[in-house]
């Protein structure tokens, strides 16, 4: 290798250069019909025939080997620096989507974000419900203590009813609060957002197979409704005209 064709890096980036060369070699082999390895070329030279299927299999095996070596390299890197990889992934997630797969990447990224938001809010709401149940138990204890002089709880059913009563009492206080109303609505809104993102992904798939989507049906239904409204207006106008005509003795 000469200094001129050392490529990017000029010494420090030798591995990059080697990788470039490796890719070139792979591509050259793949692009050249009848291109063979030294052994195969020797076989050919010795007159041995190789069916086309074998040649393809051979090529496939080489790609597989190459990709396995890449995977090993990547997984090794990942093991070596998991934190760094996560940082890199986070960075990728925040980068604007680019290239041919830009739109695909974008809708999947939005879906993932909506899912994460929904899960976080659901967890928050579940925490409130857990607190309601915990406070309800506290109230059950308190009410039983206060009942000391009265007849106590005699069976499981009575205890259950008291628990329900306390649960409703605690929940009513929470449910009427502004913070709960807000959180519950946030969960609902996040779930709707998630559903919208899921629909976007599905609709993209449906379009790919030229299948009708809900958005297209919506357009049709909207048009139908508008047409019906116009027909009703025309019918009403026609009826008025007929009535007026009759009144004037024209009919």
């Amino acid at each position, binding site marked *: 290798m000469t200094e001129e064709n050392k490529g990017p890096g000029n010494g420090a980036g030798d591995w990059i250069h080697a990788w470039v060369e490796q890719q070139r070699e792979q591509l050259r082999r793949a692009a050249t019909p009848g291109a063979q390895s030294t052994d195969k070329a020797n076989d050919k030279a010795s007159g041995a025939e190789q069916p086309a299927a074998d040649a393809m299999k051979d090529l496939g095996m080489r790609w597989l080997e190459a990709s396995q070596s890449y995977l090993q390299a990547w997984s090794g890197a990942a093991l070596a620096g998991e934190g760094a990889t996560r940082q890199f992934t986070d960075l990728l997630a925040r980068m604007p989507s680019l290239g041919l797969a830009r739109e695909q990447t974008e809708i999947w990224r939005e879906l993932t974000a909506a899912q994460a938001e929904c899960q976080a809010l659901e967890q928050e709401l579940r925490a409130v419900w857990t607190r309601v149940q915990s406070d309800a138990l506290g109230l059950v204890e308190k009410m039983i203590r206060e009942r000391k002089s009265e007849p106590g709880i005699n069976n499981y059913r009575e205890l*259950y009813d008291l628990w329900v009563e306390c649960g409703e009492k605690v929940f009513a206080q929470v449910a*009427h609060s502004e913070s709960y109303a*807000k959180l519950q*609505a*946030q969960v609902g*809104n996040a779930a709707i957002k998630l*559903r919208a993102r899921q629909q976007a992904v599905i609709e993209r798939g449906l379009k790919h197979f030229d299948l009708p989507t809900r958005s297209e049906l*919506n357009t049709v239904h909207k048009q139908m409704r508008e047409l019906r409204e116009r027909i009703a207006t025309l019918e009403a106008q026609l009826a008025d005209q007929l009535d007026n005509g009759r009144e004037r003795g024209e009919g």
Partner: protein
Amino acid sequence: MSESIPGAAELQAATNEFMRRMTQGLAVLANVRDVTIGSVAKDAVFKEDKLTLYRYRPSEVVAPDLRVRTPLLICYALVNRPYMMDLQADRSLIRGLVQRGVDVYLIDWGYPDGADRYLGLEDYVLRYLPHCVDFVRRASGHEQINLLGVCQGGTMSLCYAALHPQRLKNLITMVTPVDFQTPDNLLTKWAKHVDVDALVATTGNVSGEMLNALFVSVMPFRLNSQKYVDLLDQLNEPNVDAAALENFLRMEKWIFDSPDQPGETFRQFLTLFVKENRLMQGTLRIGGRAVDLKQIAMPLLNIYALQDHLVPPAASKPMQQLVGSGDYSTHEFQGGHIGIYVSGTAQRQIPDKIAGWLRDRDSR
């Protein structure tokens, strides 16, 4: 549970006994047959899209001079099914009215589907409801008819009455809200931060199942758990009341047989009525037309339930100040939103009240 914990053995025994009763109850429940709904014969007399207008066959035993001559059209809510008005022979407002000589028509809105998602309030208040009113007017030969609106159907009836007062002789509203922002209204509080535009844009129609989940979550311990424990527990009694069990199952069917709400109607209703309280503010417009409740000058009977947790009395009472009727009456019912149709007290009070009130105004 460890035996060393004080009371552990007793708790185990009590739990076992409770579970035994529940299991025994389930065994009885498994042998119950399907329930039937409805008790009064009716005929479908008009159809439009998914709407069906029924006329109940008049009772032949009512003397002609006791009949209410002006027909009564019942406008039910879009939420839930209208067969609540005639659930079974001994729980039927319609049967009670028919037996008292009232000629009853009922609007069944049907089950909206995806094709109905763009139906708006104007379709219901300015198209479907007027078509039903006009049909009854033509069929009965009466220029004016009586209209009874139930819950959300009552709110729509108020809007219709304000826009077409000349077509109505009398108006009755049952458990009908006009003020959607009273302090005790939990559903309004919950709706405040909901992005209803996004909801409808994403789901199209709003599913009945989702609304049921919302209604049940108002009292989650009672409605998700206790009422079923009550049922199973009662089934352990030596003389299980088969009729009471069937009543329970019939009610369960009604509660959860919820049509989806047409998306645009739901969006408008939640925005205009619930979030912006426009009926109360006097700023409501439907299909570009201003809804002025002062135009309601016909006699009006407003019936509400004192223990109603969905439409609290405070949400209904301000109606008197909003309408222009000089003949405004109220009837307070001791019970809840559902009890007003199905309880024993309701069977004794409500049909009598309505039929009597209509009869008094029939010849005026």
